[in-house]
């Protein structure tokens, strides 16, 4: 049931535990126990809400920053990654194969703030060799979810 439970809440973290119990044919207590176990094992790392801020006209600028770094002796990329991901502005940080090393996703209120983060903080880290910043112009899909409202059920009501 573990994997099935995770697949269920992966796309809907608000689904209530009573419902989950009925869907998986176990008791609600089983669900609650399993969830707290998954949380304490850090398999479930958090519960979030996917918000399209643009729809309520709140300015947010997101940038993808490709970062090339020199790995450090004995610590590889982890040490430098940590120095980057500890900034709260950093939404995501991934070690990447290919042309660069670390992909940083940054979210700020303005272009200027992003620019100053990159020039003041990121580029000045001693292991950072270079950065390339890409601004996101439009979000079509995020977290497996298409942000445009999908059409309603247009099946015949009885068939």
């Amino acid at each position: 049931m573990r994997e099935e439970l995770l697949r269920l809440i992966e796309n809907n973290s608000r689904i209530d535990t009573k419902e989950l119990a009925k869907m998986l044919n176990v008791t609600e207590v089983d669900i609650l126990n399993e969830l707290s176990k998954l949380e304490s094992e850090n398999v479930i790392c958090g519960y979030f809400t996917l918000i399209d801020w643009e729809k309520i006209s709140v300015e947010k600028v997101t940038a993808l920053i490709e970062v090339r770094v020199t790995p450090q002796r004995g610590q590889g990329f982890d040490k430098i990654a940590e120095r980057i991901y500890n900034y709260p502005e950093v939404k995501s940080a991934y070690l990447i194969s290919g042309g660069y090393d670390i992909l940083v996703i940054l979210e700020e209120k303005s272009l200027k703030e992003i620019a100053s983060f990159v020039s003041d903080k990121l580029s000045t880290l001693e292991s950072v060799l270079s950065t390339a910043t890409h601004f996101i112009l439009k979000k079509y899909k995020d977290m497996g979810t298409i942000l445009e409202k999908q059409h309603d059920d247009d099946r015949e009501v009885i068939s």
Partner: protein
Amino acid sequence: MTYNLSEKVLNIKPSGIRKFFDLVAERKGVISLGVGEPDFNTPWHIRDEGIYAFEKGRTFYTSNSGLKELRIEICNYLHRKFHLTYEALTETLVTVGGSEAIDLAFRALINEGDEVIIPEPCYVSYKPCAILANAKPVVIDLKAENDFRLKASELRNAITDKTKILVLAFPNNPTGAIMERKDLEEIAKVVIEKNIYVVSDEIYAELTYKGKHTSIAEINGMKDRTILINGFSKAYAMTGWRLGYACGPKEIIQQMTKIHQFAIMCAPTVSQYAAVEALKNGDSDIEMMKEAYNQRRRFLLNSFKEMDIPCFEPYGAFYVFPCIKKYGMTSEEFAMKFLEEENVAVVPGTAFGDSGEGFLRISYAYSIDNLKVAMEKLKSFIAKLKQ
């Protein structure tokens, strides 16, 4: 002007689903549990293949029997999933949905006066199609206490020297019942002994929740007397593409192809290209949808348990078939009242045959949120009944 129409057609009753549909259609904001088709969209890679076929200008007829490539993939699929071995070129016919295949099978086999055994409750098309093919339908009323499976003794009792065909439709619409290998083996014994044919509508074969589906064609001695019917509507959520197929002995498929050739020409070309993609790369889509259906199935069964509504555990398709006899109403009265008071549409079991009396067909081809609301409404509805 008075129209002088076919007596045979005039005498066919309109589908019981249709009647209820018309009632529901007049209302606004109905929460429906009434559909017989998946709520999922056709998986994108399949739709994309359809678009690609349009772009490539694949807008011509295919051969009457269907694209060779598709027939080969159908045979690969049947082998991979159900251990069935059919020859793509002579034993496989691509049709306009399972619906057409049912009609063709009857028309190719039946002589006037032959009897077709139809276990009910069942999908609405077998009886009219049998009648249109000049057969006499013989109904077996399946029993709730047998979990709506067909018993060999019931079959034996229904067979006469005129019996030509047994229709088997498992996993079943509307009950959700399945037939397991041991059940089918018992049926096969009688079928072989009495030397009749089986038209096996296995359109829900992918949707089983207790082990894998067994086709009767796989049982020893049955392949030569079985017409297997399947399609893309339910497994791949492709109802609107109108694509199905029949497999069987080449002598029968040949005659079915003749009718198909004159009545239909060929199944929709773009759908056939998309179906090739479905068969090649659609297994994981089926698994994903099946897991969701199973969760909803359990959700409904547990909800009925809480409300103390009796329901046998259905292991197939996407329907549950609860018994509402204890509320002292007919299926139709219950469904009507539920619609009027709570604006929820379910289909009375009687739309699928007299033996559906006392039952409702509830479809779980709906989001869990929709089902949750509907179950709350059902709860408040029966609470009022009890007062």
